[in-house]
């Protein structure tokens, strides 16, 4: 018994010691827990968040583009897209391989994806495939566990309800290039597009908006469990253009299969109502990626569908340049409204004979009649008297051959030659060059938009600037006065009247070159000037035959041009129409301008803000005054 007591006492002592040691160890564990859970809570809470919360930036909705009445010209359409957050995958290449087994990718796409993966941070998704169809979606959904970091989401693509008819004016969007993306990190976001050409380019920054973000909770496999926070960013602003989509459609329809351009301006303030160029292209193709075959087709097409002929097509203005020459001569004093010059059907200068149009002898006529019947000899002589420097100065005043102040991108400057220009280019200027300058041939090359601008400036005498944007968001476009208060051009009122009269007679008298294209609206007249510009130098035989007819190969036929404004006594609209190789301005270009003017003057929405209702009756001219 004694031994047992001794045993027991010794055991108890040791058991208590062991128990104390164990309690000590538990306390140490508790202390460590306190350290981890309370003292270092902040650090680990952050790490837990970083574990589970992934944030990615999302592209904002691109702003809409509307016409002047709010009709949508460029909108957005939703589609399904697969993107990849490589930060969520342990082995991005393996995920990519799994993805390719489900959704085949072309070699081009693979190369692009690899390039994107290489230079993008983990929080910016890389687009794997746009425009997923249902079988693709189903395959991705079922195999989601093998695809950590792959997100199937709604993407937007650009749509153009008017398709090709507004492609040049509105432009198009495309994926930013690698170089552009380097300059602006927001551009690398999936679905982010950059404007190329037209309004899309002109107001690209306003249309883009600011990116948003999606914070989502992802599990250990990178699958999204739920969305924690979402900020859709700032959508791009709506850009209202000055265009009239109805008139634009009419212009495209009337140009038809011709190669050409038509521009209609509000002559009082320079707003572009129509800017058409044919043939055109499908602007939505650029968003998705233009198929190689289509691209080749565009590049080899002799009608150059991608070129906006209204702004970058350079044409010899032909006789549409004559009002400019007349104004220059009137200003220089080398011509008065009453000056009479004789046209024998040709002008002989040295050894060279310059024929009048159609070899017609117009007789002794004034400037008004010369414009009406489009006498070349009259303007040969006037140009010789006035000189090209005075002509080019007047042209610049009217917006011809000079840089226009405009918000339309990529407008070609064109050329109206001067001695200074000839000297700088090493051109040996001869008198013959001045002669053809009088009828808008030779070196002179102008864009349809500048011709329309000139028509508007001749009509109003004011320095109106063509522009296509009316409002960005809620702010009116700056730099242009919508109320018609543009500065006067410092052109004598009387001189303008003379030219107006000539242009009136072109359209409204039987002898005028565009009489067949006169307006049929009661009490409203259009003024205009035809142009028929040779595009190739006739050989001697051709000159004798006045070889301008359908028997010529298409590419050798003269371009048909027409500039116009209406109503003649209180100009509201100005237009320029070019039909490439359309033979006669009065025959193919003027009727299109007439139809556009008719639309402009009668279309209720336009008529509303015009004062067409109380428009005075047009100037009448008696048959007796028309020279024979």
């Amino acid at each position, binding site marked *: 018994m004694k031994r047992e007591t001794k*045993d027991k006492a010794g055991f108890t002592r040791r*058991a208590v010691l062991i128990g104390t040691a164990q309690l000590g160890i*538990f306390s140490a*564990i508790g202390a460590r827990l306190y350290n981890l*859970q309370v003292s270092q809570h902040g650090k680990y809470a952050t790490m837990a968040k970083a*574990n589970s919360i992934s944030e990615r930036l999302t592209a904002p909705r691109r702003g809409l583009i509307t016409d002047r009445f709010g009709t949508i010209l460029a909108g957005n359409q939703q589609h399904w897209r697969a993107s990849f957050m490589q930060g969520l995958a342990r082995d991005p290449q393996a995920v990519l391989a799994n993805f390719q087994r489900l959704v085949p990718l072309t070699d081009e796409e693979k190369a692009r994806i690899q390039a994107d993966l290489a230079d993008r941070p983990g929080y910016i998704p890389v687009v794997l495939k746009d425009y997923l169809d249902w079988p693709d979606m189903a395959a991705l959904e079922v195999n989601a566990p093998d695809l950590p970091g792959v997100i199937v989401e709604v993407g937007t693509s650009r749509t153009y309800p008017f398709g090709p008819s507004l492609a040049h004016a509105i432009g198009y969007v495309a994926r930013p290039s690698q170089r552009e993306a380097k300059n602006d990190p927001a551009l690398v976001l999936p679905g982010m597009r950059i404007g190329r050409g037209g309004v899309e380019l002109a107001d690209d920054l306003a249309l883009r908006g600011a990116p948003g973000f999606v914070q989502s909770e992802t599990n*250990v496999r990178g699958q999204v469990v739920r969305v924690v926070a979402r900020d859709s960013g700032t959508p791009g602003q709506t850009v209202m253009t000055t265009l009239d989509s109805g008139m634009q459609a009419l212009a495209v329809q009337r140009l038809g299969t011709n190669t050409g351009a038509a521009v209609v301006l509000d002559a009082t303030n320079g707003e572009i109502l129509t800017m058409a160029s044919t043939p055109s292209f499908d602007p939505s193709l650029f968003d998705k990626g233009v198929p190689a075959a289509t691209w080749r087709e565009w590049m080899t097409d002799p009608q150059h569908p991608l070129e906006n002929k209204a702004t970058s097509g350079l044409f010899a203005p032909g006789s549409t340049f004559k009002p400019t020459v007349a104004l220059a001569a009137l200003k220089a004093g080398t011509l008065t409204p009453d000056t009479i010059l004789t046209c024998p059907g040709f002008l002989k200068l040295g050894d060279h004979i310059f024929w009048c149009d159609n070899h017609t002898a117009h007789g002794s006529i004034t400037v008004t009649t010369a414009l009406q019947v489009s006498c070349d000899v009259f303007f040969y002589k006037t140009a010789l008297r006035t000189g090209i420097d005075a002509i080019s100065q007047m042209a610049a005043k009217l917006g011809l051959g000079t840089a226009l102040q405009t918000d339309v991108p990529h407008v070609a400057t064109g050329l109206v030659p001067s001695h200074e220009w000839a000297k700088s280019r090493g051109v040996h200027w001869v008198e013959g060059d001045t002669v053809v300058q009088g009828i808008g041939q030779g070196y002179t090359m102008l864009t349809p938009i500048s011709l329309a601008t000139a028509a508007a400036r001749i009509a109003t005498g004011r320095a109106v600037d063509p522009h296509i944007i009316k409002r960005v968001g809620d702010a009116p476009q700056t730099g242009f006065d919508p109320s018609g208060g543009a500065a006067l051009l410092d052109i004598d009122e009387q001189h303008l009247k003379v030219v107006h009269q000539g242009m009136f007679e072109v359209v409204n008298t039987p002898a005028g070159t565009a009489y067949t294209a006169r307006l049929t609206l009661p009490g409203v007249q259009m003024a205009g000037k035809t142009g028929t510009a040779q595009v190739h130098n006739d050989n001697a035989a051709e000159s004798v035959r006045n070889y301008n007819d359908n028997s010529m190969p298409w590419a050798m036929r003269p371009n048909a041009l027409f500039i116009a404004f209406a109503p003649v006594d209180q100009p509201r609209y100005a237009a320029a129409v070019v039909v490439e190789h359309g033979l006669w301005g009065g025959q193919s270009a003027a009727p299109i301008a007439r139809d556009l003017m008719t639309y402009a003057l009668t279309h209720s929405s336009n008529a509303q803000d015009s004062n067409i209702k109380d428009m005075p009756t047009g100037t009448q001219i008696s048959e007796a005054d028309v020279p024979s």
Partner: protein
Amino acid sequence: MNTLDNSLRRPFHNRSFGLMRKFLAINWLFVLCVCLLAGVGYTALYSAAGGSGEPYANDQIYRFAGALVMMFVIAMIDIRVIAKVSWVAYACGVLLLLMVMKFGHVGLGAKRWMTIGGMEIQPSELMKLFLAMAIASYFHRASYERVGNVLFLLPAALAILVPVGLILKEPNLGTAVITGLIGSTVMLGAGVRWWKFALILAVVAAAAPILYHHLHDYQRQRIITFLNPGADPLGAGYNIIQSKIALGSGGLTGQGYLHGTQNQLNFLPEKQTDFVFTIIAEEFGFIGSVAVLALLFSIVALALYTAISCSHQYGRLLALGIAANFFLYCFVNLSMVMGLIPVGGVPLPLISYGGSALTAVMLGFGVLMSVHVHRDVEFPSGDL
């Protein structure tokens, strides 16, 4: 002596009446603590399944109910009978360890498991209890004088080293160390001098570099990872980092039940088994984890109380061994979860999902309760 004690001193008289008394003599506070822990386990496993009884929580609670019945049955067995079969159990344990080496199947890179009668068992788990029984029975007969005799200690040391060596061979470093420590604790309780353990510890420390040389690659990897978990965050160090994040993000009061992101979003590997504590810590915070720590320690303390209150050496030593087993389970698991010691497949007893460890622990508790019920039985050292 009261009537209860009298009846227990004559266990073979009035047997049916004695069974009832025995049942009432079970330490019910201890049973309550065990049930509370099982409840904590159910709560954690329910959360591990994302707020569902399937597939872990319900399964585990049924197993626990079965194991509880087993515990009560074993508690009724006379401790002297258990003492008599100690060496038989030990021999069976060693045999099972040998069998698992030959026939066992591989799980997680080690041959630890075998199936007996449709039950998955880990012989090493059973061996820890059988070893404590055998050593306790060895020292039951020994006087304090004999304990001081080094030659007398040698058979006991050998009895410890045989299973430790076999478990190391499986390989299962964690359980081998625990087994050795249990045997040592029982010997310490029997009165073996402290300095002898200090000596052994010194020898082991000196041998550590040689031992490291013989470790398996994965064991070395664990040690390297433990020393620098950030070196390969998505590889071997992943478990430790994610586990620490889970603990740390719990804060003082936790992220709320079923709202721990680490747990609910599956960042925790093996969270329902070895890392189950992180669920509690993340969702109930420091307060919750300390409460669980207190509950775990109260079981250790109650087992030690049984040991101290026992009148015979066998019961004392066995209870001490079982307390040590439970304590070491908790210590190794919690240290592992907190990144204090290298990761090893040691579950948190009564809370982790899994049948084998639960069965082994409850078997030990059954024996412990038998000690408690029979703490005052006539069991002089000469009886064996």
